[in-house]
């Protein structure tokens, strides 16, 4: 008797995708023989590229955040060995700009990346000729990469951001007058985009963790008995792991930063 064929369904959701741990531990790049350190560096390098490009493209921070999350997600299903990180970063920011309703021309994206690369490697300023083969080649690569990202993520490219949560939560905690606290929490969130926390936790938890860490550093007391963040569904366990990841990234970042430029020089 024939077994009825089961087709996999597609679920489109506005919630962020949280990856299971097996997927986070054994990445395609590592299966291709890339070391864990190198992979982390490539992730950080790509995210820094995206962030810098976003600034130069005058995009709102949410667009950069979306692009970085897409970039990270993509490399949990594809390998850095097979797909160039810079082209993918370009595709992600190009796509994210459209998602966040601030579209930019592909030419501007290519230009900005070209410019950043020259500036970081301390080369003299030069613009790319937009009738040159180099430009046409880059452009078609980016378009192809964008299509690959979309396909790989199943067109679920909406990202829920914790930006709004930070301000709302601080308002509930009656700390919304403290600009320093808001800014610091906001900064932590920008910085943690380089890590895989957005693939591990809900945006609400990340917002809580950012506030928690900033309040501690600024010596601001927040209700702890019972802890305030339980209202927003964050648990102590999650917070601790988050803090750990962010702080470890903070402390080893100097090393990563140096390696990053080595990567950059090799790639160029």
């Amino acid at each position, binding site marked *: 008797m024939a077994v009825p064929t089961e087709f996999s369904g597609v679920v489109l959701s506005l919630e962020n995708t949280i990856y299971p741990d097996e997927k986070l531990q054994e990445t395609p790049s590592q299966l291709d023989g890339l070391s864990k350190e190198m992979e982390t560096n490539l992730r950080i390098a790509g995210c820094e590229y995206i962030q810098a490009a976003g600034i130069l493209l005058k995009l709102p921070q949410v667009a950069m955040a979306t692009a970085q999350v897409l970039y990270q997600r993509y490399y949990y299903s594809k390998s850095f060995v097979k797909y160039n990180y810079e082209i993918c970063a370009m595709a992600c920011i190009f796509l994210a700009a459209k998602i966040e309703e601030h579209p930019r021309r592909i030419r501007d994206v290519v230009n900005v990346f070209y410019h950043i690369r020259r500036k970081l490697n301390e080369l003299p300023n030069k613009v790319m000729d937009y009738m040159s083969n180099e430009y046409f080649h880059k452009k078609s690569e980016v378009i192809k990469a964008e299509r690959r990202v979309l396909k790989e993520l199943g067109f679920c490219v909406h990202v829920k951001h914790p930006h709004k949560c930070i301000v709302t939560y601080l308002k509930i905690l009656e700390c919304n007058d403290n600009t320093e606290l808001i800014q610091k929490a906001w900064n932590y969130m920008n910085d943690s985009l380089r890590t895989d926390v957005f693939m591990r936790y809900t945006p609400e938890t990340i917002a809580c963790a950012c506030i928690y860490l900033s309040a*501690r550093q600024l010596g601001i007391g927040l209700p702890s008995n019972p802890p305030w963040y339980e209202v927003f569904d964050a648990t102590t366990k999650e917070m601790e792991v988050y803090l750990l990841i962010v702080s470890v990234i903070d402390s080893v970042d100097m090393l990563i930063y140096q390696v990053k430029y080595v990567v950059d020089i090799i790639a160029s």
Partner: protein
Amino acid sequence: MASLHSLVNYGADSDNEDEQEDRNKDSLVEYRDEDSAFKAAEPTVVSDSATDLHANGKAAFYVSESDDDSAKGKLVNTDQDEIDRVQLPPEPDGIHSLNVQKKIITMLARKMDSNMNKILEKRKNFRNPSIYEKLVEFCAIDETGTNYPAEMYNPKLWDKHDYYNAIAKVQKETYEKKEKAKQSRTQYISIVKEMMQTGKGRNAVNSTSIQNNLCRGSMSSLYIV
């Protein structure tokens, strides 16, 4: 729990604090229970959370070899010294207002039947898509801020010539200049051609050879430019 502590070094008073937090968690779960009840429950919960951490492998990336055998082999170890360097400032005591604490307690009680995040999401002003820009403006937030020291990562590295519209402008100008040069050259060639065509009747052989030479000349000048 012990292994969890070895992961994070929170400084001097970390142990008490961790326990306190765990206790808080218990007190939430067993909200109206007697003190003794949650004390009895405490050890099991604590060990649960510790084993969970390892089982999930969430913290496994930061676990050193000696800590957990299951983490060995498939994961890269981060230097134990690096982890030890991570320190979180201690919790300041008693500065927060009692009002807020009360608010949290009532909210937690309310949370039993409905989810706070859902409530927030449903609020009209939270759903407003332009609220983001308003918030940034209202709270005077530097959107692209970072907590890294400037020598490590500096989002303010760029000046006004680096922005995309400035680059596009320069690019366009360069291109137009090039086009113009090309155009004037083709104009020159066509003028010469015209002149030769009018003189064609007189000396046909000569003019074609000149034309060829000119074309060759113009081609090479194209390459030079």
